[in-house]
């Protein structure tokens, strides 16, 4: 509102007269200009999108490949080595993609938990009074984060896991067998009877099974992301003022209790945003699973792309799936961020 004196005798004509004399032209009006600028930029973006989409559709039509989703209903015709949801070759492509997605989510969830635990422990260890432990933590971080993840995955799979013994020579503990084909654990089998791992026709079988492919992928993801998370945690702990440590120690709290009760809770608000980035990377990195023979979403999509020739559609499905997954992780972490931020005074 313009500063109109309250005692003014004739308000209605005056309010117009007292405003900066001639109304400014619209291109200098602060209420109009931002809208115009936004509209122009928005229009340009829309035009660009329309141009790209138009080009895509025109050329796809020319190549006889106009976007179509009917293939999703056709039988896939290929098998999947491990799937949480039931799958066989007669089921349609969308079921295969769903099975792949579930496998991806499974790897990502377990990977997130594992990497967080490992990263937190290593991050804490870098503040230990034990010099050896501190240096070990540094060496781990520096070695792991400077080697490409794909190389590490190939190393875990071909060098570590595939050199495990097979068949009868497998490592056998009561109720647990670790063989080249995977980890087998006793559990409730058919008819709710307790069953241990058994060797049938040269192949181990057990109620609970973890394939080496899954194992190699998980190990790779956890070890790799763990190193980055350790750095995030280290940064968070370092951000807590030294006085907090000194105050805690003057109260007689042990090193671990200080970290657990005083320092870590305060460092969370620095750690969580950084953690978000690492979680998202981990979810995206899981698509390297195909290098170690684990049937994740990317692997299924690749086979699907080849069988159907619907490159654009399959890539769109992939983009949408990874985007959704990452946005979900991001949303959860932002929620967590709010929780830890509230305590700030």
């Amino acid at each position: 509102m313009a500063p109109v004196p309250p005692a003014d005798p004739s308000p209605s004509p005056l309010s117009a007269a007292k405003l900066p004399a001639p109304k400014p032209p619209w291109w200098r009006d602060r209420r109009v200009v931002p809208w115009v600028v936004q509209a122009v930029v928005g229009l340009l973006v829309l035009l660009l999108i329309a141009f790209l989409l138009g080009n895509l559709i025109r050329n796809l039509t020319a190549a006889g490949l106009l976007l179509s989703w009917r293939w999703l209903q056709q039988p896939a015709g290929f098998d999947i080595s491990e799937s949480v949801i039931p799958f066989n070759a007669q089921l349609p492509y969308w079921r295969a993609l769903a099975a792949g997605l579930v496998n991806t989510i499974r790897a990502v969830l377990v990977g997130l938990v594992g990497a967080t635990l490992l990263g937190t422990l290593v991050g804490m260890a870098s503040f230990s009074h034990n010099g050896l432990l501190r240096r070990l933590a540094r060496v781990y971080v520096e070695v792991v984060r400077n080697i490409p993840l794909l190389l590490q995955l190939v190393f875990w799979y071909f060098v570590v896991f595939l050199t495990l013994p097979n068949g009868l020579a497998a490592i056998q503990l009561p109720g647990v067998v670790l063989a080249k084909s995977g980890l087998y654990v006793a559990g409730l089998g058919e008819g709710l009877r307790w069953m241990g791992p058994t060797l049938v026709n040269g192949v181990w079988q057990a109620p609970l099974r973890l394939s080496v492919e899954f194992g190699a992928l998980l190990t790779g993801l956890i070890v790799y992301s763990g190193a980055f998370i350790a750095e995030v945690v280290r940064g968070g702990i370092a951000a807590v003022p030294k006085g907090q440590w000194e105050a805690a120690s003057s109260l007689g709290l042990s090193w671990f209790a200080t970290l657990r009760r005083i320092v870590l809770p305060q460092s969370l608000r620095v750690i969580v945003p950084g953690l978000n980035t690492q979680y998202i990377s981990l979810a995206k990195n899981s698509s390297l699973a195909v290098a170690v023979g684990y049937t994740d979403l990317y692997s299924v999509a690749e086979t699907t792309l080849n069988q159907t020739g619907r490159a654009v559609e399959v890539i769109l499905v992939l983009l949408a799936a990874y985007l959704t997954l990452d946005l979900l992780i991001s949303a959860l972490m932002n929620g967590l961020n709010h929780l830890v931020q509230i305590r700030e005074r």
Partner: protein
Amino acid sequence: MLWNRTRSLGASLLAAGLLAGCAGDDGGVQSQKLSTITGRGKLVCGVEGKLPGFSFVGPDGKYLGLDVDVCKAVAAAVLGDPAKVEYRDLNSSERFAALASGEVDLLSRNTTMTLSRDAAGGNGLSFAPTTFYDGQGVLVPVASGIKDLKGLAGKPICVESGTTTELNLADRMREQNIPYTPLKFQTSDQTFAAYLGDRCVAVTSDRSQLAGKRTSFPKPDAHTLLPVVMSKEPLTPATTNGDPAWADAVRWIVYGLMQAEESGITQANVDAKLAEAKANTNQADLRRFLGVEGDFGKQLGLPPDFVVKAVKAVGNYGEIFDRNVGPASALKLDRGLNRQWKDGGLIYSPPFR
């Protein structure tokens, strides 16, 4: 491998964006691809790159193999020089995207011709004549004692993802109701590494590929091909549907290699035959075939003597086969179905007329 993977994604994205690049490609009589290749001065050929006998890098750093010789023949026919080829190693998942996006001009990469790959509503490829009739086989360690598919029940089998092999395996096992675990890898290197690492009791692929790969195993004799042939695998060079004139040119260059064998024209005697054709006006067939008479080359957008150039570069089909996968090679494969039709095989060139 990271590189491979990046390229695979890149190729797929290219395929997605393909479209942006080559707008305004509306055919006409002249082939856009042919003028692109002549303008560029080299042919970009997609090959497997690590498959002995078909396409691999020899000790001197040069590409060798049956698929590579097809690239060389096409380069010789189009550009007059078999060395003017740029090879791109493609894995089976990225090959079609690379071709569709125009990253490679020609795919000569032990690729099986199938309906869905050919059809405009499928992958939309255009296939040249089949250069190797193959079938899917299974390689197992001799020590495993496995004799047939039933012996693989419940066992893990290594297979390259994105291949017809993967589907045939699923079909054959389903037919016979044999449970199995397919372990899929993106490249043939990973597939065979997992097999040699004993993760799978068997690896399945085209029989020629298994025979080729076996030659590079530490102990080739410790592995044996099961007698079962699980499928028909006509391995065929391919171009895209987008440029019929280019597809025709490739088709007839390959037929030229086959016809040359049938007509008894070899790398060694092609010059003599050409002189003979020029001297003797009565030999109409030979004169047309070698481009002394008629305008076959022009009709295809190629030089008139394209057959002479191709044969001079790599020899006729029989010579290519013998040198790369036949008796003169480490693979020592029998001609089998790949004999000339006169000898009971399937190699048959339509008339050059």
